[in-house]
């Protein structure tokens, strides 16, 4: 390892991606922060956007901005074709059977709320159980808490191993006859853990339950097939995968979506309306009330295309390697606690850690002053923080444009932080 560490240039050659070329596509990476080059390691919060996405957005507003679906004029026809075309792009990307299973939302949070308050209200009865993992993001926890309270249903939590993986033996017992739904993240935004969705889906289906997958962290970083994993719902956010803010996708199995009542009511989701009563539109429009986020949906197509061109297997490989390198380097620091699986193959490119005695907020601040953007806090996972017995963690998360050199810069800054805080953890 030592020789590689000495020559940062050669480290990049280890990547399955052409990082230099990729970085040129992201204008923000040329930005300086207080005179220092930006090192963006907050990708689990939101990713940066390539020019192709920014330009597509701009082009939409400069060339064919119009409201969709009901318009008969040229602009509206063009916008509708592009908007609906993106649905097909998504379908292919996640390997869904039909485009009518693709619902555009604002993001993962809205997707999960949609399911909890339509499917949930229809199907969860008093005494029923909703099974969650202890590593769920608040967005995949609080909607179920509220549903459980309303329905007098019970939340059941899966168990984690010491390395932060779901204990599948316990899961086989916890997912039982009263389970109506298993709602679980495919990749933890704190631990990085990749959960075995297919096995969990099998356990759920055996009990006649369904499974909802929070794909916020997984879909941007690895190839998924909703059919392969045999999920019933998958929700994810475009802003975490090179797309603009304000768009997400909820995919659901057609038969389940068909049986659900609508979520919001208004224009576009109706078939016909009289003063007292309305008939609702077909899938997917039944779930898309009002003017959608047309521009951002259309621009999202460029994000999907960018990732597909790189190849999701290359994206994943790059992240495994940079995570492996970062884990190794971080372990050099005395008094550091790193959470989640040790094997980079078993996790995503998200590393949460604490440097003894230094509050993550202080770390985050000092790193920011060095131009390095990481996240610090509870990462919307307060129950997990409690389980880990910490107030919060510092979190570095990688994406397709991050280099091994940036990991080195992180390390240097962490050492500097140690000094600033008058701490003696590292010698």
């Amino acid at each position, binding site marked *: 390892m030592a020789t590689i560490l000495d020559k940062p240039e050669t480290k990049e050659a280890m990547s399955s991606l052409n990082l230099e070329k990729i970085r040129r596509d992201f204008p923000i990476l040329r930005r300086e922060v207080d005179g220092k080059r930006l090192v963006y390691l907050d990708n689990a919060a939101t990713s940066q956007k390539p020019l192709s996405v920014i330009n597509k957005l701009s082009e939409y507003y400069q060339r064919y901005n119009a409201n969709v*679906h*009901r318009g*008969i004029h040229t602009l509206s*026809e063009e916008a*509708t074709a592009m908007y609906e075309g993106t649905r097909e792009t998504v379908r292919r990307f996640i390997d869904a059977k039909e485009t009518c299973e693709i619902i555009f939302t604002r993001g993962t949070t809205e997707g999960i709320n949609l399911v909890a308050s339509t499917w949930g209200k229809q199907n969860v009865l008093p005494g029923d159980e909703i099974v969650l993992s202890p590593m769920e993001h608040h967005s995949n926890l609080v909607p179920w808490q509220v549903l459980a309270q309303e329905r007098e249903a019970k939340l059941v939590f899966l168990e984690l191993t010491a390395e932060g993986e779901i204990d599948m033996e316990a899961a086989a017992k916890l997912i039982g006859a009263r389970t109506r739904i298993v709602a679980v993240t495919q990749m933890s935004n704190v631990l990085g853990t990749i959960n075995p969705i297919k096995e969990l889906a099998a356990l759920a289906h055996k009990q006649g339950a369904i499974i909802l997958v929070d794909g916020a962290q997984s879909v941007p970083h690895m190839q998924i097939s909703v059919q392969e994993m045999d999920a019933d719902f998958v929700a994810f956010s475009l802003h975490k995968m090179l797309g603009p803010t304000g768009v997400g996708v909820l995919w659901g199995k057609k038969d389940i979506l068909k049986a659900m009542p609508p979520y919001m009511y208004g224009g576009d989701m109706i078939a016909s309306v009289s003063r007292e009563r309305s008939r609702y539109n077909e899938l997917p429009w039944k779930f898309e009330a009002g003017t959608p986020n047309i521009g951002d949906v259309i621009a999202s197509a460029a994000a999907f295309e960018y990732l597909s061109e790189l190849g999701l297997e290359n994206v994943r490989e790059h992240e495994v390697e940079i995570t492996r390198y970062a884990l190794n380097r971080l372990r050099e620091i005395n008094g550091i606690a790193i959470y989640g699986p040790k094997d980079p193959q078993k996790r995503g490119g998200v590393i949460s850690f604490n440097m003894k005695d230094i509050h993550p907020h202080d770390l985050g601040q000092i790193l920011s002053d060095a131009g390095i953007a990481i996240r610090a806090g509870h990462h919307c996972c307060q129950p997990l923080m409690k389980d880990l017995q910490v107030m919060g963690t510092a979190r570095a998360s990688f994406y397709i444009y991050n280099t091994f050199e940036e990991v080195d810069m992180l390390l240097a800054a962490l050492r500097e932080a140690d000094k600033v805080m008058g701490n003696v953890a590292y010698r």
Partner: protein
Amino acid sequence: MSLTDDLYRETILDHYHNPRNQGKIEDASAEVEGVNPLCGDELTLFLKLNDQGIVEDIKMNAHGCSINTASGSMMSEAVLGQSLEKAREIIESFKNMMLTKGEELPLDEELEDLEALRGVKKYPVRIKCALLPWNTLLEGLEAAEKKCCQHS
């Protein structure tokens, strides 16, 4: 105005201004309604099948745009007197013409009038207008067939 001319070819305008088979059938084998959610256009279709499953009569009550009205009118002419099976074939080839992209297969000679609607493909929103009568007919045939079977 070439596109417009294309779209509003003589045939279409003829059927639009003088739609065939308008009205009601009192003793219909099936009566079905169709609606286009995008524009609110509605259509009531009446069908009468005889014992051999032949479309003996077809009538429509529609207030639609020119495409919708002309498409319904042409449709009624195309399926009147045809067997259930043949009617479904015609529907199939028409829908094919309207929905397939790429290579364009001409319709059978006896359906020549319908060729006039091919120009609508340039206007994706209006494909729904052209298809409404046909989708309604599909439903109607099914309902009528069920009824006939119950009779026998």
